[in-house]
């Protein structure tokens, strides 16, 4: 037993040793765990980029987008990251304030995003709208607007995420602010009796919804495409709200501490090309930031198309998040 243990340990050490003994330059990319997981796009993207860069791509992961910024802050100037992929737009201002990111110098045009992109630090690689997902077999008449969901006392029960710990949670907080403005806290109090719970992250909330604990769950407009494509189930749908939907954009940026600046720049340019973008839809279940000439991906043909996109700028989020969260806490913890 002990001997075997030692052998394994030795093998692990050796394996790590060999992994470092590479002659090709290594591009280290930080991302969140599901991006680099078994079903994530990381493997495909690594293969496709290595085919053109004469380098090796090394993924390093953090639990989720939130932890990515935390990890960078902890590592500071000594970070090994050349590229950071997977930041949420709501974190962009905070991430910039770390002064670890370099301008991307990439031509960002012809995007499929519903907004104009001007940022010179981050490049968007995919996007989607937040939406409430429901099971059409159990909820034949979903609300048609956020107001209807909030104000109908007999409306469906919803499963939400805590805005302090989760990106979609923060998304809904901002969505409510866009729709209700200063009255958002009253709206929260009105919705509160029908909130099943606020979970720590998207995964728990979505899992509990699938297990039948709520009628609707805060997720993305693209979620039904997963059920349709992989599970061949068409009963999961995203509800289209008349006020418009809050936009979620995922970003990539290169660090200014990188020793592989050329490679990192090459990767930043690669992000908006077809080999990268075509890997996104059926792995990350988000809209690619740039559609191929043939139009939007076929898997998303049934995805609802919000008429209006709602969005705060990253700076507005940075300024107001604390106040928004305090208001939410007061309204929902009464």
């Amino acid at each position: 037993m002990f001997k075997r243990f030692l052998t394994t340990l030795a093998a692990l050490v050796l394996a790590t040793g060999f992994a470092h003994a590479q002659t090709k330059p290594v591009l280290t990319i930080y991302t969140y765990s599901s991006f680099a997981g078994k079903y994530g796009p990381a493997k495909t993207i690594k293969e496709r980029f290595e085919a053109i860069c004469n380098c090796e791509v090394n993924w390093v992961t953090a639990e989720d987008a939130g932890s990515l910024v935390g990890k960078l802050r902890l590592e500071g100037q000594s970070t090994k990251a050349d590229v950071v992929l997977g930041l949420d737009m709501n974190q962009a201002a905070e991430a910039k304030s770390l002064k670890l990111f370099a301008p991307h110098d990439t031509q960002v045009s012809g995007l499929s995003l519903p907004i104009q992109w001007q940022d010179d630090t981050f490049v968007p690689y995919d996007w989607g709208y937040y939406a409430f997902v429901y099971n059409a077999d159990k909820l034949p008449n979903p609300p048609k607007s956020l107001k209807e969901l909030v104000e109908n006392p007999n409306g469906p029960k919803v499963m939400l995420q805590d805005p302090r710990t989760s990106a979609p949670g923060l998304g809904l907080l901002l969505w409510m602010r866009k729709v209700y403005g200063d009255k958002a806290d009253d709206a929260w109090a009105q919705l509160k009796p029908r909130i099943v719970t606020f979970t720590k992250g998207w995964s728990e909330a979505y899992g509990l919804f699938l297990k039948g604990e709520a009628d609707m769950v805060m997720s993305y407009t693209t979620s039904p495409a997963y059920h349709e494509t992989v599970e061949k189930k068409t009963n999961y749908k995203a509800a289209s709200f008349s006020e418009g939907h809050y936009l979620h954009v995922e970003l990539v940026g290169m660090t200014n501490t990188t020793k592989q600046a050329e490679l990192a720049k090459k990767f930043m340019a690669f992000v908006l090309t077809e080999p990268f973008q075509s890997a996104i839809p059926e792995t990350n279940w988000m809209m690619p930031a740039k559609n191929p000439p043939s139009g939007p991906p076929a898997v998303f043909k049934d995805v609802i198309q919000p008429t209006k996109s709602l969005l705060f700028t990253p700076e507005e989020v940075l300024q107001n998040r604390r106040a928004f969260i305090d208001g939410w806490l007061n309204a929902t913890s009464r």
Partner: protein
Amino acid sequence: MRLTLPHPGSLVALAIAALVIGGFSALLMIDGEKPSLLAIGPYLTRVLIFSTTQAALSTLLSILLGVPLAFALARRRFIGREFVLSALGAVMVTPTIVTVFAVLAVYGRSGWLASLLKALGFSGDFSIFGYPGILIAHVFLNAPFIARLTLDALDTVPAEQWRLAQSLGFSPRQIFRHLDWPVLHAELPGAAVLLFLVHFKSFAIVLALGGGPSRATLEVAIYEALHVDLDFGRAAWLALIQVAICLALTLTVNRLWTRPPVSHTLRSTILRPDAADRRLYILDIGILSASLLLIAPPFLSLLAGLSHVASVLDADFAKALVTSVVIAGLAACIACILSLALASAARRLRLEMRLPRAAEIYDLLPNVLLAIPPFALTAGLFLIVRPFIEPSSAGLILLPLMNGLAAVPFIYRFFGPKLMTAGERYGRLSASLGLRGFWKLRIMDWPILRRPLGAGFAIAMALSFGDFGIIALFGGPELRTLPYLLYERLGVYRLDEAAAIGLLIVIVSFALAYLSGRLSNAAD
């Protein structure tokens, strides 16, 4: 007086204190500003009140179920008893997210209970979100732990006392009063404090089953400060509040309760005479069935993951399994060595040097470790080693270390009282025989330690096995444990595969508990 080497336990205590203080200072200093005192607003006050109430209730309920369960198991022998004991060890290390799903699979809106009620003709929606959900989940996780600990304690009642009780014809009440109560009295307060702290800082369960931000714990605020606000100073202050509360609690309990000394005697397992009592027989059957009804269904609901086990068994899984086992093994070694050193230092202070107040400091340390949010401490230590070590290697060192430290408070409860017992029973004899160092350990302590050591090692390993706190900071394709894999699948809609991985984690923990039971259960 001649200069002697400090006791290894003192070195360990110093090292732990240095780690903790260093970690916190690093967090507080990161911005180079002077840390400002944190104001506790109305929200934090509410959270503190809720956490305290919730933790006290959870602890009380866990004890109310766990202790009678231990008695029932001590009195009865039945087929599958060993299986039940191993299951008790495995339940408490179920990853929190798996627990949430398991509890809801049974008690949720579409759970087994709801379906049963519907089949019986009851209609209407019911919800366990709020206190019921939190309490059920906590009792499910920790009543088995209390049962296991109490059962181990009951086993230490010496054989002569049983013989005496038998020849005096003790009634069950007298047996409880004179034989069981002293043991319970010595064990339970410490265990209760430990559980209180576990419940006090329970995070994902409270959020998922609490139903609203009024039902949150301080850990949520700490997480927010660390992950979202990136305000490390605030995180450190919040963590300090938690440490202060835990210290106050531990000290109060220590003041109120002094451990009665044990007589020096032999011990051997003996069938309890009160097993023959009719009323107790009925009571035990009742308790065993009640525990079975409460603990078994969520445990069984994990079996739903079986259908997808085949699809998760791949190279990724094998690698994650090996990584998990290696890390857990290292962590368990660290935890056992640290706990042993601390416990033996505490014993020396109590028995040889007659300084019980000083010994208390050693008893306090494990609880302090528990009160510290592992994430905050890891982040702090990471800041310290950052200039010297590559981030990826830092993970390899910090991960087993932090997991080991996190297990210390639990297994200290297994070792501490046992070492004291060994010392009180045989300390004078072995001193008069001139036993020292290794031989003292081998002859005096080993026989009594062997069982708790096995159990402690398994629990430490299983705790580290199911942990997802620290790996979240360092994990990656290179360093991936099973819980990490579970979250990764959950993050991309693969609920069934996540359930299968959850099941496999519990099975491995169960196997560990079973193995340690077999290894250490040999006649003593």
